């Protein structure tokens, strides 16, 4: 009997350790992630489904949804292209000011988004550097959609580049050189070799970039001007309704925003699941 009992006794504390660690992690997730998410949805539906539907079918709600999707649709592709270009430059070339470029890519992470918004107001606002000239030519940037796009771009600029740079540095350029010697031109090299090699990191960067572009509040708030139905994105709409004591409406829009985020996560999980086997087969194949 002892022979059986002894090993159990020795694993006891270890099991306890493991259980408590898992418990802490799960409890933390519950309190700080799942609970707020649940509150958003319950509050949104607290006054009944009718109120919820009424809140999200208001024209202002619809326009904020459209605007959020429009901004994301412009910002994400632009920053994806920029991210790939910047990562390529950082990983493949040595040039003067490379460290500076690296620091600049990180700048949006370091600077408060409010400051990012203020910079654009100072540049393009009515009293800003280019304000009078823009005014004379009838171009509106601040308190209009272009300002929202610019501010969102600033804030989401590092996501794709930061995902790609370490990966591309680790992979090196031998695959690309091999493709060239085999006769591939620049585009073939990029689309047939480089892109497949970085696609998972790229996808992850794009999803993060998208989530932030749709959810950004600070920078967008400064340049938006809060013109209902014209320049309010979903996060701004939530805030405005909340400030007007329209809790049900605020939570209704918030729940839609949360749904968009969940959708993003679902797509990522789906892709990982779909290509999971393929990933597992290839991941160890360093080179």
């Amino acid at each position: 009997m002892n022979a059986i009992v002894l090993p159990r006794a020795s694993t006891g504390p270890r099991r306890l350790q493991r259980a408590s660690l898992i418990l802490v992690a799960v409890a933390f997730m519950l309190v700080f992630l799942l609970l707020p998410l649940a509150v958003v949805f319950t509050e949104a539906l607290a006054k009944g489904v009718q109120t919820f539907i009424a809140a999200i079918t208001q024209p202002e709600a619809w326009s904020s949804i459209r605007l959020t999707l429009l901004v994301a649709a412009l910002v994400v592709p632009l920053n994806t292209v920029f991210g790939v270009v910047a990562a390529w430059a950082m990983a493949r070339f040595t040039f003067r000011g490379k460290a500076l470029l690296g620091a600049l890519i990180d700048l949006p992470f370091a600077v408060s988004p409010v400051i990012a918004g203020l910079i654009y107001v100072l540049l393009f606002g009515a009293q800003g550097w280019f304000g009078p000239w823009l005014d004379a030519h009838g171009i509106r940037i601040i308190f209009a959609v272009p300002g929202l796009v610019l501010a969102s771009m600033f804030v989401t600029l590092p996501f794709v580049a930061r995902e790609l740079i370490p990966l591309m540095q680790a992979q090196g350029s031998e695959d690309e050189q091999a493709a060239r010697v085999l006769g591939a031109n620049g585009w073939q090299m990029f689309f047939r070799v480089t892109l497949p090699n970085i696609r998972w990191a790229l996808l992850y960067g794009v999803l993060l970039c998208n989530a932030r572009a749709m959810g950004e509040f600070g920078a967008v708030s400064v340049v938006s001007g809060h013109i209902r139905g014209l320049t309010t994105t979903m996060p701004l709409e939530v805030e405005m309704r909340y400030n007007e004591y329209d809790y049900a409406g605020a939570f209704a829009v918030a729940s839609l925003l949360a749904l968009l985020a969940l959708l993003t996560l679902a797509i990522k999980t789906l892709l990982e699941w779909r290509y999971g086997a393929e990933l597992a087969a290839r991941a160890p194949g360093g080179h």
Partner: protein
Amino acid sequence: MTLELSHLTRRFTDYPALDDVSLDIPPGEFLALLGPSGSGKTTLLRILAGLDYPESGSVRREGRDLLAIDARRRKVGLVFQHYALFRHLTVAENVAFGLRVRPWRARPKRADISARVERLLQRVQLQDMAKRYPAQLSGGQRQRVALARALAVEPDLLLLDEPFGALDAQVRVSLRRWLRELHDEFGLTTVFVTHDQEEALELADRVAVMNHGRIEQVGTPEAIYHDPATPFVCEFVGKVNRIAARCEGGKLVAGGLVLGADPWGGRHDTAIGYIRPEQLVVAAPDQGDGWSVRVRHAFRAGGMVHLGLDAAALGQVLEMDIFGGERAHDAWQQGACLRVRPRHVTVFPDEIEPTVAQTPEPRTVASATRPMAIGP
């Protein structure tokens, strides 16, 4: 189709990777670039592949300037040290890559491509692996895929960067014999880079020994081994004993033993002699000449016996290799006393240190150091 490399110079920020390198590579040759790391051999290979460019010098093929042709149009097959297989493509797709990226007009038909891929995979004995991914292959299999991929575009010139460097010893030996067969069968011109002198001597038609960005000697493996042109080649290729000698009265003397006549007619006072371990022989008892030595250690490896000999007259240890079957083993026990003499000594004047290749005038130095063989 001779490839003419002339006066190639490539400088990295702090050191010259190639320093005035000239070399002719005739068609069908299997050439080894042999040298320690940092000797410039990989740089030379990358220049031939079009992945690097020299500051000065030219590479011509049939009179045309090869350097003016972009890497993708050079018709060169390159196998990287770590193979650089495309990890997201199957073995067959990897091999087909060079054909699929061709411009529409030059691209073979789909069926022709798969037929050629199949033939090549058969030739490298990987026909059952066509659908696998590189990560699912062993090192030797990956190397063969890389080779098939390079051969698929029917290159004029095959370049291999340390082709066996990442493989374990057993696979290495069988693969290199196989590679030599492949070279002969396809009628290729092959240049391969290696730091392993055994590999270079066994495989190549000619070996170019490189050091500090220069070619120290080009020649057949026999010439490189038996008639090394410089002290560096002597020491880098094969095992060798280095002894100090003096030129006295028209004779070359080391440790009291007359090696032969002074080859330089008294122009140098001291000299360095190189003796290969297998060129040392036990002197017959009735012959007086030879160094008295004591056996410090004796290792038997199959048919060979490797001896370490304390030579008091020279003040150093001599390495000696001898066939184990020839004489009584007892003579080679630890502590035994023998008389040995060299069958063949390669001598250089002492001025030149073996690793100093950057003497101001390499050509005159090379002629002055013309090795002299002394033997029976």
